[in-house]
């Protein structure tokens, strides 16, 4: 079930390649919008990069450019209502990976803060092989920062691909 965002105000939206320099620009804008002297601002900034860097690394749709190692394509929306900030990303994944992602998200939604910290530690200590880029630990971190349930949706696109959407909320101070 994806959080109903129809009554929310759209603050920021982007669709395209998630090159690190593009994400940096948006991150800078988020800092200015929310200030970097509030807990909300810090949380939003951190969640923004964890969510979007996962898209950059793992989206199966890419727009390769020599200057960048990661060139995943997707979209993100930042919305708000009176009490919450809502950040979501959407990207293409292999259908076969949908099951693993669902498992990660369900697991994170079943754990409390202490349990999430523990599992983050265990995951972090696993192989530091440079090929291992750790999507799992990224989603755990998002769960820890948000402290809200992760909403996600996996829609089959065709025989090979699915569309993965993940939505996280942050309570405003």
């Amino acid at each position, binding site marked *: 079930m994806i959080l109903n965002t129809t009554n929310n105000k759209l603050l920021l939206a982007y669709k395209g390649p998630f090159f690190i320099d593009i994400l940096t620009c948006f991150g800078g804008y988020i800092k200015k919008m929310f200030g970097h002297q509030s807990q909300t601002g810090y949380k939003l900034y951190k969640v923004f990069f964890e969510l979007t860097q996962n898209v950059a690394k793992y989206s199966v749709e890419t727009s390769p450019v020599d200057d960048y190692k990661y060139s995943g394509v997707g979209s993100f929306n930042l919305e708000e209502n009176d009490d919450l900030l809502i950040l979501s990303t959407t990207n293409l994944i292999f259908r076969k990976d949908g099951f693993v992602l669902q498992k990660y998200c369900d697991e994170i939604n079943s754990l409390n803060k202490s349990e999430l*910290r523990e599992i983050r530690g265990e995951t972090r200590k696993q192989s530091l092989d440079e090929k291992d880029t750790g999507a799992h630990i990224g989603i755990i*971190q998002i769960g820890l920062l948000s402290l809200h349930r992760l909403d996600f949706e996996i829609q089959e696109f065709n025989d090979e691909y699915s569309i993965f959407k993940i939505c996280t909320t942050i309570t405003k101070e």
Partner: protein
Amino acid sequence: MKNIEIPLDKESPYFPEISFNCEKGICNISGESYMEDCYKFYLPLVDWLNEYCSLYSHLTINFRLYYFNTQSSRMILKIFEVLMNFKAKGGEIIINWYYMRSDPDMIDEVEDFQHESGIKINLIEIID
């Protein structure tokens, strides 16, 4: 051994500023850390620390990281593991982690680094 000095680059703010000085025995890591290839960036720093720890007996390391992504956190943990080994062999180590008062999540992060590495980290609050 040579020092490592990596100044802050406004064009690439995802690399932290690095100052590793073997004469003074002081290392500083400041700014933000969310580069594409964390392993490639941090491996020379880990190698430097391993070499330093084999030659010297004292080290102070200061962290002033506003933000680091989860991939960076794995390499930071690697640094702490090197320092823990140094301490276990009789080295004297002081680790200071400066955090913003408005970012209490950072306290949890550092406490978890302590727990996972077994090394003491001094948390120092900065009023922002």
